[in-house]
């Protein structure tokens, strides 16, 4: 496994939609390198034959009746939105204008 570097962090920050300054990228690259180094031992112990656990107590087929249940009104759903119009969330432009 390779160490995490500043370019990786810049790319990951973009994927995670977090704008970062140069100083933040420098600092985070250093911190994450230490953390990644300390967690990589997990791959040493996890052999091919070990099944993965995604959920501590496996439950299957957790279903409910197919009827309208507990729902928020449009007004409730929009109550915490930074911007809304006509009963809908209002978002900035999706595409960049040229």
């Amino acid at each position: 496994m390779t160490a995490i570097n500043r370019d990786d962090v810049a790319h990951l920050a973009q994927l995670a939609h977090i704008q970062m300054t140069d100083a933040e990228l420098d600092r985070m690259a250093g911190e994450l390198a230490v953390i990644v180094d300390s967690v990589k031992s997990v791959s040493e112990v996890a052999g091919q034959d070990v099944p993965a656990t995604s959920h501590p107590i496996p439950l299957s087929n957790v279903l409910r009746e197919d009827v309208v249940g507990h729902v928020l009104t449009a007004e409730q759903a929009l109550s915490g939105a930074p911007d809304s119009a006509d009963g809908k969330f209002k978002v900035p432009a999706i595409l960049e204008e040229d």
Partner: protein
Amino acid sequence: MTELIKSSAADLAAKLAAKEVSAVEVTQAHLDRIAAVDGAVHAFLHINTDEALAVAAEVDAARARGGADAENLHELAGVPIAVKDLIVTIGQPTTAGSKILEGWHSPYDATVVKKLRAARMPILGKTNLDEFAMGSSTEHSAFGPTHNPWDLDRIPGGSGGGSAAAVAAFEAPLALGTDTGGSIRQPGAVTGTVGVKPTYGAVSRYGAIAMASSLDQIGPVSRTVLDAALLQEVIGGHDPFDSTSLTDPSTGLVAAARLGNVKGMKIGIISELHGEGYQAGVEARFNESLELLRSAGAEIVEVSCPNLTYALGAYYLIMPSEASSNLAKFDGVRFGLRALPTDGPMTIERVMGATRAAGFGDEVKRRIILGTYALSAGYYDAYYGSAQKVRTLIQRDFDAAFAQADVLISPTAPTTAFKLGEKLDDPLAMYLNDVATIPANLAGIPGLSLPSGLADEDGLPAGVQLLAPARQDARLYRVGAVLESLLEEQWGGPLLNKAPQLPTAASNAKESK
């Protein structure tokens, strides 16, 4: 007044039922205490005075009417409680300790909050936490840290330092916490209080703002083991709104806490979770607890869980991976903050980037980036996939250990409370605080922390942790209550009696005159 705030929830419930005191008096006494000491402790982010007093008045009115109204009151009706600000509440803001949710009001109640309302427990307010419950000290709260009532220059643990400090400072007899890697138990240990992480799924997570969904668990924070049992019975049980909720009833916990014997029980010391790396005073109090349990007729055995060595690594891959997904919803569109980029085109992508940059603190950003890394193509198998395998190995270790012992035991945290600021610049050192609590979350098993005494070197509280197999939470309450009573016999009363007097707003005012 002092007597009221120092009473356990069980004692308050008895006094209320006997009409020795009214719910309004009990609630007001706690609100007064908050007004007096919370300036110094900063356990609360929001105080819910009017609603709490209104609920208390309803309880008093029902009790005064008598008949069915009084008989139908829940045992804890009128006993006030604080709620960690990660759990959503109608009528109060929920911030998760983050700028991104500052001032946000949830349009719905968490299931546990609905249950508190059904039991008519006045909600005193919302308690401080590390942002989105990410931290072990509350220093990552966007609204300033909480201070440990034992020493205001020290951390109260985290992420639920606000709930633990509120209970330790007698601002509330009970509180709700959430525990993803130790956020209920570790604050309990460093503040000399009791905290329980129930079996995964025993308490509904609906309305707890998710960090890592396969690890998160809501649980009780209190000053006594019995009080925690009473509270878990209120909040536990099946919830169709949480698809990971277990169908087991949350009963038998109070009875277990009242059982009062451990004769013949096998209690296993986990070899990997004590000794090297644990502060001498923490280890000494731990050994005394073992002796007390032995003297009460329990058999102490040593068990080994070799894969716990990898638990911290697995946790710091699984938790950030899940957190990075769960926190993607904070996009500046649906709720909370929207920040605009200072220049360039105003597209949704750039608004999102600016919003998350302005709204999230350093630790949250760190974990989102780490999770995004662990889940990215090329690394997924080596990191996230391997961590999930380690999770299986740890579950197998616990299965083997519980074949030899009814309950496992360890110190809750390796050290007592450290100074505010001491580990803030060293994320890895901060993460190591949870080395003994994380395994229970990975395995989904229940864990309880109770005070084991004061460490000799610094006079600060240490904690002892009990672990039981999944769905056997009752065992924790049974053993915990016995150990608590043996320890209190030695101390001559609750450990918190030894805590220093807190500066109060009134006494500060006097001094400044």
